[in-house]
């Protein structure tokens, strides 16, 4: 077998895994791995900050379902990528991150740009490994991709000391090999994710479904991870059960479908929240009873029995004890559930649910999502901007959000009718996610239009990656909803801190977003009046050779409704309508 060096082996291993693109930034310790990239068909995208590389890898994975790859150097580069690792861990996004490390003889000596990367990232990765021998590199890469993409997906980090990849060092020589499937599983004796649901439990679940009179399907991000959107549609239609889609599952069930109730949770719509509260059976599919969904836990859906399907056994019973726990892959389990329900007689075996349906449609009529239109001369309403954007972009546009009010409005007002069209940071709530994640999504899906909807606070955290996008000709589009505030924090201070605004004002004019965008090689547009909104979006949609940034000047007083205050019961949901009554 031919002798090669560790750096070549690392790149060859990535090629073996089908990697097409690496998001990264080189530096001292990772230098030897950057040399063979020149000779590799893998595309490398040079980021401006390592955090950007991590979020791009995430955006790529969100949009394609394939693992995103980021590569950075040691020390500060490794610490800069901790946030994306944690973000990917919380949202179960498969990414593989490769960090350089000082040479093995220097480890532990506080060498230049040394840090304990494996120690620092241990609790924010599904797995990590400090690779100490060149001969371990192919195995470690194969394992990293296997672990990142199977079971509950997540981030895996490989820390690569310089001496095992440096061709000038004899320690970097190895005989190339590629582990077989059998060698892979023999090397991981403790890792065997359960994918097939227990037949007995599936039968129990089917029985609960056909007996229930007020069922709701509580669909989470696991549906998308398991490529289970079609199976979900079949189950919902077969049993005629309404579906709520969590923040991580927007698009997993079409918003235009008659059974879709939209997003539940702290800023979910009234019907989604209230139907869960009043249900007698919650069918939780790839969802994890997050506090932003349940509100005060003892008061959450008090009469509901729970069927909980998740590939991670630790999620079952973590928050709410299920009546029927099923460990398994959502797609496989739902397909079995469909069969089991049919065996019991299908829809005809179910009780009459017309009362439940009319209660639901009553809530929908009484409490639709709504907002007050702006008066002439006033700042734009963010919801109005989003409606315009939604209605003038292709149906399969990929929408990427940062974190805060703009994220909630986008999730609420967009119509997601296709899976993998919504990319956002759910669990960790990472401000600054949108721009780099949108770049990653566009690299993964160049055929799709990609719009980042961002807040002014978020945009200032990672905007420099637009330089990356302009340089690499990645034509994303960014809509900044500029309300000159850290809007969500402002909302909480207004509602819960007696309008005492502490450190939330950002200024509408500083920075000048239009000039900033242009300085970064993008087209910059500023929109202040309602009649300018449409033409600006049309113009942006027509530009396909560089990124476009539209700054929309929006009303800083606008708040996100409905809202379940933190720690309150979902029964105490504040709607736009009820809030207005209180004020008047």
């Amino acid at each position, binding site marked *: 077998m031919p002798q090669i060096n560790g750096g070549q082996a690392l790149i060859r291993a990535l090629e073996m895994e089908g990697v097409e693109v690496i998001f990264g930034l080189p530096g001292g310790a990772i230098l030897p791995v950057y040399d063979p990239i020149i000779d590799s068909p893998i595309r490398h995208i040079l980021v401006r900050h390592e955090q950007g590389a991590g979020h791009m890898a995430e955006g790529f994975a969100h949009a394609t379902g394939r693992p995103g790859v980021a590569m950075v150097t040691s020390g500060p580069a490794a610490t800069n990528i901790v946030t994306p690792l944690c973000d990917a861990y919380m949202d179960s996004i498969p990414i593989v991150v490769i960090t350089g490390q000082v040479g093995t003889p220097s480890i532990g000596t506080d060498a230049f740009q040394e840090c304990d990367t494996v120690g620092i990232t241990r609790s924010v990765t599904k797995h990590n490994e400090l690779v100490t021998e060149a001969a371990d590199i192919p195995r470690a890469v194969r394992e990293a991709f296997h672990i990142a993409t199977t079971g509950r997906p997540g981030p895996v980090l490989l820390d690569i000391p310089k001496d095992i990849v440096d061709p000038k060092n004899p320690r970097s020589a190895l005989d190339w090999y590629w582990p077989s499937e059998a060698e892979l599983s023999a090397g991981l004796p*403790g890792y065997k994710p359960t994918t097939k649901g227990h037949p007995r439990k599936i039968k129990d679940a089917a029985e609960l479904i056909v007996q229930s009179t007020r069922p709701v399907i509580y669909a989470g991000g696991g549906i998308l991870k398991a490529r289970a959107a079609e199976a979900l549609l079949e189950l919902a239609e077969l049993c005629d059960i309404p579906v709520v889609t969590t923040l991580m599952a927007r698009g997993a069930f079409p918003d235009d479908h008659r059974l879709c109730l939209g997003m539940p949770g702290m800023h979910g719509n009234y019907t989604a929240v209230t139907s869960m509260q009043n249900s007698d059976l919650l069918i939780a599919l790839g969802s994890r009873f997050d506090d932003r969904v349940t509100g005060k836990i003892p008061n959450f859906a008090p009469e509901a029995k729970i069927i909980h399907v998740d590939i991670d056994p630790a999620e079952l019973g973590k928050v709410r004890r299920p009546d029927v726990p099923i460990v398994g892959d959502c797609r496989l389990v739902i397909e079995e559930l469909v069969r089991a329900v049919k065996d019991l007689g299908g829809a005809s075996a179910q009780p009459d649910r017309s009362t439940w349906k009319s209660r639901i449609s009553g809530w929908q009529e009484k409490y639709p999502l709504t907002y007050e239109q702006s008066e002439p001369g006033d700042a734009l309403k963010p919801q109005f901007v989003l409606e315009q954007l939604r209605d003038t972009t292709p149906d399969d546009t990929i929408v990427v959000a940062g974190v805060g009010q703009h994220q909630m409005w986008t999730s609420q007002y967009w119509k997601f009718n296709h899976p993998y069209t919504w990319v956002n940071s759910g669990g960790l709530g990472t401000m600054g996610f949108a721009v780099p994640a949108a770049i990653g999504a566009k690299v993964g899906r160049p055929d799709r239009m990609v719009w980042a909807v961002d807040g002014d606070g978020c945009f200032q955290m990672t905007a420099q990656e637009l330089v990356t996008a302009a340089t690499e000709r990645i034509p994303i589009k960014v809509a900044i909803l500029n309300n000159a505030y850290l809007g969500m924090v402002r909302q909480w201070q207004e509602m819960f801190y007696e309008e005492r605004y502490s450190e939330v004002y950002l200024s509408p004019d500083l920075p000048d977003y239009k000039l900033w965008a242009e300085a970064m090689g993008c087209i910059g547009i500023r929109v202040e009046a309602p009649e300018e909104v449409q033409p600006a979006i049309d113009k942006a949609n027509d530009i396909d050779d560089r990124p476009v940034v539209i700054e929309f000047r929006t009303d800083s007083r606008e708040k996100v409704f409905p809202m379940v205050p933190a720690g309150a019961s979902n029964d105490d949901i504040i709607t736009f309508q009820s809030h207005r009554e209180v004020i008047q």
Partner: protein
Amino acid sequence: MSDGIGYRHHILSVLVENKPGVLARVAGLFARRGYNIFSLAVAPTEDERFSRLTIVVDVESAPLEQMVKQLFKLIHVVKITELDPRESVERELLLVTVSAAADIRGQIIELVQVFGGRILAVGLDSLTISIEGAPDKVDDFEELLRPYGIVELQRTGRVALPRLDRTPRARIARVS
């Protein structure tokens, strides 16, 4: 719990791959999830690829089931067995230096003999003693010795295996 034996304490026998950082992963998980470790003993098994951790956990701090499930998510954890103290063999070693002036030294030596311990070192006015046995026996010995004045004390934490003749009834908490 003072006796360390009550049923709020559970013994987890955790088979792990013998890889660098495994102990840090386990300890880090317990710390991050807010679980309490009562005692922990680690050593390689008969198969050099694996080590066995015997962890006594305080279950008041979190439900045992969640603890086991989270532990099993660590890639290097191969198998987790919950050992019922009533159906397993447990041993612990105690080293102790105790004040032992000449006039009371005889009483202490007698106590050591009753418990089957050994005198490891004799000083002018102190003794160093080792005793090995079931944790409750070690607890008893420690209590009885305390009035004499303990100078220094170190326990190993317990190690355990399922009791052979009752193995079929041992609770196996293997998550898969």
